[in-house]
């Protein structure tokens, strides 16, 4: 094997040599003793820097085994692993693991250690100074949306499932590894919290740009989270390794098509985000405005209602002419009309947006920025148009081919 230069592992994201490939698996295989068939058979794959690559497949396809071979929790029987150009197949596994973040479904927080000490695990192993560790812990807790003052001295059993998951992610990022391995990290969490954590994680990833290997059996999660998806069949044979768009539009074979399942058009909505579509503008007023002003606005526009914003431009209410007529003249706008529900941020998927609209029973969703200030409106027609254009693109690719399922 090549000599180990792991002591001077590049800490920063800007790799000097490795270029755009962070992880390279070369002919990787695993045979467990007493089993005739290998669990993973001759897998070769390249994982680009800064992307989330999803390993997805039916249970028993070897996706978890594959992931665990990367940090050598499971030692490969043959093949080689390169991390940022360096062969790490034979380096000290404990040293290797300190450079790779690791999150598992059960999180595995240490119950006898405080949240701060849980997060400090790897920095302590690396011999960081106390002050540096303490700063890093606070920074990470803030990064995952938990108040350090409130949580650093708590114990895992005092946290909810969602909070534990956040601490698990914070702990995995503690020493700022370039690579993170995540094994169904959101698998044991209720659907509503899961959705929120997924969105938070995607927002976080936009800033931290880690290279992430993410294992799941849930194709919807794969489509939502992945920059690239590797769909694996048994023994980790790659059925298709591509972007979610291309997999949905152009599945490589029947296995992939089956795995994606029906309702591909709806799934495509998970691929487009609010920031990718054109926002409509809508007449708005400050909540202190007079009723006359609202009447004027309504006359000047083709819309039937105005959106009332507070002083920070956060949406408060929908008000139409009817509401004004029924109210006494001096009544504040914030006390009239319908609540401003179905509010989404630019990184929400169109699928989430549609969901919000349906549950609020509105045909529009309000788009706000990260401080909840009004940005614009997405309406149901926009979503409809997006579905249609995605389908057109797909049909174009299929070159007038056979009977692709025409759902919805």
């Amino acid at each position: 094997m090549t000599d180990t230069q792991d002591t001077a592992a590049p800490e920063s994201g800007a790799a000097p040599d490795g270029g755009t490939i962070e992880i390279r698996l070369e002919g990787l295989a695993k045979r467990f003793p007493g089993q005739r068939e290998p669990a993973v058979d001759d897998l070769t794959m390249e994982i680009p820097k800064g992307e989330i690559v999803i390993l997805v497949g039916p249970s028993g396809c070897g996706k978890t085994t594959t992931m665990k071979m990367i940090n050598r929790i499971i030692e490969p029987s043959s093949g080689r692993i390169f991390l940022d150009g360096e062969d790490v197949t034979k380096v000290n596994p404990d040293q290797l693991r300190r450079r790779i973040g690791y999150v598992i479904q059960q999180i595995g927080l240490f119950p006898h250690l405080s949240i701060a000490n849980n997060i400090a695990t790897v920095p302590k192993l690396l011999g960081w100074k106390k002050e540096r560790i303490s700063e890093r812990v606070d920074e990470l807790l803030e990064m995952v949306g938990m108040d350090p003052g409130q949580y650093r001295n708590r114990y895992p059993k005092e946290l909810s499932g969602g909070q534990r998951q956040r601490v698990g992610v914070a702990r995995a990022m503690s020493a700022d590894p370039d690579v993170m391995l995540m094994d169904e990290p959101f698998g044991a969490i209720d659907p509503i919290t899961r959705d929120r954590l997924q969105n938070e994680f995607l927002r976080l990833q936009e800033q931290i740009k880690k290279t992430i290997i993410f294992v799941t059996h849930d194709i919807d999660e794969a489509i939502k989270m992945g920059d690239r998806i590797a769909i694996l069949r048994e023994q980790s044979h790659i059925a298709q390794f591509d972007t979610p768009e291309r997999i949905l539009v152009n599945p490589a074979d029947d296995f992939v098509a089956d795995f994606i399942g029906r309702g591909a058009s709806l799934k495509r909505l998970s691929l487009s985000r609010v920031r990718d579509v054109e926002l409509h503008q809508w007449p708005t007023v400050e909540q202190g405005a007079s009723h006359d002003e609202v009447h004027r606005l309504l006359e000047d526009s083709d819309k039937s209602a105005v959106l009332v914003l507070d002083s920070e431009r956060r949406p408060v209410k929908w008000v139409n002419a009817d509401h004004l007529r029924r109210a006494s003249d001096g009544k504040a706008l914030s006390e009239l009309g319908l609540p401003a529900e179905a509010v989404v941020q630019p990184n929400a998927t169109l699928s989430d947006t549609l969901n919000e609209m349906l549950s609020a029973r509105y045909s529009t969703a309000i788009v706000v920025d990260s401080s909840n200030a009004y940005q614009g409106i997405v309406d149901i027609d926009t979503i409809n148009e997006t579905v249609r254009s995605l389908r057109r693109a797909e049909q174009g690719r299929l070159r007038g081919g056979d009977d692709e399922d025409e759902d919805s």
Partner: protein
Amino acid sequence: MSTTSDETKAPRVASGASTAAGPRRRRSLGGYLFMPVVLGLVLLFTYLAVSRRDLSPTESSRLAFDYIVAKTVEHLELTIASTVLVLVIAIPVGILLTRSFSRAITPAAIAVFNIGQAVPTIGLLFIFAITWSIGFVPVVVALTAYTTLPVLRNTMVGLTQVDASVIESARGMGMTKLAVLTRIELPLAVPVIMAGLRTALTINVGTATLATFVGAGALGELIVSGFSDVSPFITIVAGILVAVLALIVDYLAGIAEDVLRPRGL
């Protein structure tokens, strides 16, 4: 597996009266005081009964304060020596038997320690007396043989019940096997190991009364002298003393359990 827990019996006293024990406290102050008070009262009544009674010459020599203290010290020496020996044997062996490399020999090893507990201590003492020696050392060896199993078994249970995902995440973050053992597995196993130790201690206090038959003295001597001197009174007093001693030891071990149990569990 744990012995009588006095927290259930302890009356609940409003907490906040004491800040001494801090967040590690598992019981209220009243809970901690209950047992010593009861035991103190028992000793007081025993003392009163002895001092008010018209003692025969043998009784007064047997129940003399200095004599009782000497026998109690002997008793404690036997108990502590055997328990320390149990710890030194059972915990390392328990650790070794739960490592992945030793899985094959674990059942055989358990069987050996099972024999130690299956053979009656009194029998073991007589065998030692015939084939080896009498006195302090053989008694300690016999007591150790008897109580290694509960501590060993609790050590193993304590270590194996640690959540596999906790160990996997520790290994996955690059902790060495030794670090996982000392920083994760052992702290998490402490409550169960301590429960086993508490059992062993209490058994040892009781069983150490047999030491008198092989010339190692201790409080058993007092009990037996009640028979030979035909004075049930001596036997009763000695029995009370042994019981109180066992409960004190158990009480102290309970406090140790509370103090050593990691926070967050």
